[in-house]
């Protein structure tokens, strides 16, 4: 009975949402006549004052950089809340719940793959302003590399203090670059380095710097999350 009512409610809600969005239309320009869509201005300014190839990066880091600062804070808070919820006194570090032992294919393969994954992640977040990618994507790839090593080896460990130092330093870099913008242009997060030539590595002012800091931060945080959850010693097993 409850399932039937829920399906009915969902059908009504789904019809309501779908009807509105179908009406808006897919693939056609759908702005009203009097609108001056900001996307045109963003695309124009990305080419000219900013000289950044990836328009999405310029929006995320420069035009709407404040949102990105908030998002980095959300990640930081999520890791803090995770640590707070799972906190136990007499925390036994180094004691993991191991479900199974890895075969030799996994152990030798992961030793080969790990540097390649880290390199790929670093490439993605350093070139965030030139090709699709960026700090968040690169950071997640790096964390995947650490996950591989943590799953393959029983006694592989990363120092929790080192992760927390990297995380804090990267966050301070981001907020610090924002505050430095005050001295050069007068507003928070303003771009104060020269823009360079488009499609070069050193272009876009502070955008690569911020994205590199974000890449480190996300990689450190996600690794910390995996590490906290892996060291969760259950009361019934382990």
């Amino acid at each position: 009975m409850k399932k039937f009512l829920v399906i009915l409610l969902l059908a009504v809600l789904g019809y309501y949402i779908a009807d509105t969005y179908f009406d808006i239309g897919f693939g056609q320009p759908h702005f009203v006549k009097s609108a001056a869509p900001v996307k045109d201005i963003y695309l124009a300014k990305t080419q000219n004052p900013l000289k950044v190839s990836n328009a999405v990066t310029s929006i995320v880091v420069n035009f709407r950089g404040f949102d990105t600062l908030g998002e980095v804070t959300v990640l930081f808070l999520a890791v803090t809340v995770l640590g707070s919820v799972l906190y136990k006194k007499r925390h036994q570090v180094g004691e993991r719940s191991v479900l199974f032992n890895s075969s030799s294919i996994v152990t030798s393969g992961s030793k080969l793959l790990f540097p390649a994954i880290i390199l790929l992640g670093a490439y993605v977040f350093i070139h965030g302003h030139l090709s699709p990618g960026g700090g968040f994507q690169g950071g997640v790839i790096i964390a995947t590399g650490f996950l591989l090593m943590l799953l393959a080896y029983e006694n592989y460990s990363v120092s929790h203090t080192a992760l927390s130092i990297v995380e804090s330093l990267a966050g301070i870099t981001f907020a610090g670059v924002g505050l430095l913008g005050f001295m050069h242009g007068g507003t928070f997060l303003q771009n104060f380095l020269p823009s360079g030539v488009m499609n070069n590595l050193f272009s876009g002012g502070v955008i690569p710097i911020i994205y590199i800091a974000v890449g480190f931060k996300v990689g450190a945080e996600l690794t910390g999350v995996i590490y906290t959850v892996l060291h969760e010693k259950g009361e019934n097993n382990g």
Partner: protein
Amino acid sequence: MVGTPVLFIAIPLLAAFLIPLLGMIWKELVRIVPGLVLTYLLILSVNLLNHVLAHGPIVEVIAGWVPPIGINLVFSAFSGFLVVLMEFLGLLVWAYSYRFKRNVDYEPALKYFLMLMMLITGSVGIVLTGDIFNMFVFIEITSISAYGLTAFYKGRNSAEASFKYVMMGSIASTFLLLAIMIIYSQLGTLNMADIANRIHTMKPAYKIVSYIFFVTALGIEAEIFPLNGWAPDAYAEAPGPVGAAFAGIVVKAAVYAIIRYTYTIFDLSGTLNFLIIIGMVTLIIAETAAIRQEKLKRMLAYSSIGQMGLVLVAFGFGTKEGVFAALFLMLNHAIIKSLLFFSGSYLVYNSTEKRIVEVNGMSKYLPITSLLFALGAFAIVGLPPFAGFWSKLSVMTAAADSNMILIMALVLIVSVVELVYYLRVVNRIYFFKKEASIEPHRPTINAMVVMLVLGAIILVIGFYPDAVTGILHKASASLMDKSYYIHHVLSLKQ
């Protein structure tokens, strides 16, 4: 210029990233630095508010791009007043929880103060921002801090209350994003002033759908009926100061968001009546539920939900007197409810169930705390000469001006109901014999100072309401004038 609004966000974020590093040097810094940050922000907010009252709103652009290209913060009389209130309450909550009640270790204390600072910063961000997606990000910051703070104690039920909160908060974010995208797909912009300027060109069907989704999403945070299922449990399971922070800071930010959408951004005709109806329903249901509560904090939570319903009714009048009454109610409620949570925590300190019958006879052992709780109870019911009397009076005046006799009657009836369940508790504190099994716990020095400060403010506002009414009049004028807001934000030159 003494400082800019973005410092309200930038300084706490910088401090939040620094605190884990500082904690490795000296552990006490973890408790001290949030206090320094909050004190500095309180002074900054008072300075900015004085400037704004004399010269007009401050609009600050971020990243050097003027609106509507970039994001902007708006510190007007209305938002500035709320920021001062939130920073002040935040400082008091920090001071109250400085020496923790149960001795917690270093790591949980670090996380507690971080989450508390982020809760306050997120709420201040919701109030200051001028961009709808930015408001979504700040709502998420506030919500995640709230999830963590609710689950802070290790008892059996706190994780469950927090999980319920997570589920409802998640649905709130979903609806909020849907509503934002409907507006973006039509108008191509995310800036509040720009949307307000162009919204008359949007199809009415889209406006209605978008507004309903917005109110649903924000209503979950603002605890409107029927979206407040998570609230009583979250208030009951969270630590006492956190309950005060929720009631005094987070809910105010959510109500601000609803009001900003209704008054400034959307131009639909039935929205004010809609606010009155949901406000009335929330008020009636919450107050009747409060009578039946056995646990002290749940009773305070339902009372808080009811007061927010009354605030929405007052905003729904649509007149300057209505907005003035609503703001006065918000101010008084924030201060009085915080005092009730603070003192109530000590009255049921050592009991596990925190039931009302366990406060019997506490007046002999905790005389000052009991007196302050009684003061808060009388103030919130609206007895003269305490603060709550003036705010309820202004609600009745605004209702009379709009010829809403039914609402005047309702407010009187609800006040009587509140009198019943609050006096019940005060009666038990003073005139019953203490339960033998409950040990009273004396408040610490910092907690006592905080409670006395709040009590003093209640008395000051009660005897001399003109101290605050000037600011409230300017704040309500600032909200009512929509075209002034739009003009002020959009006229900035690159």
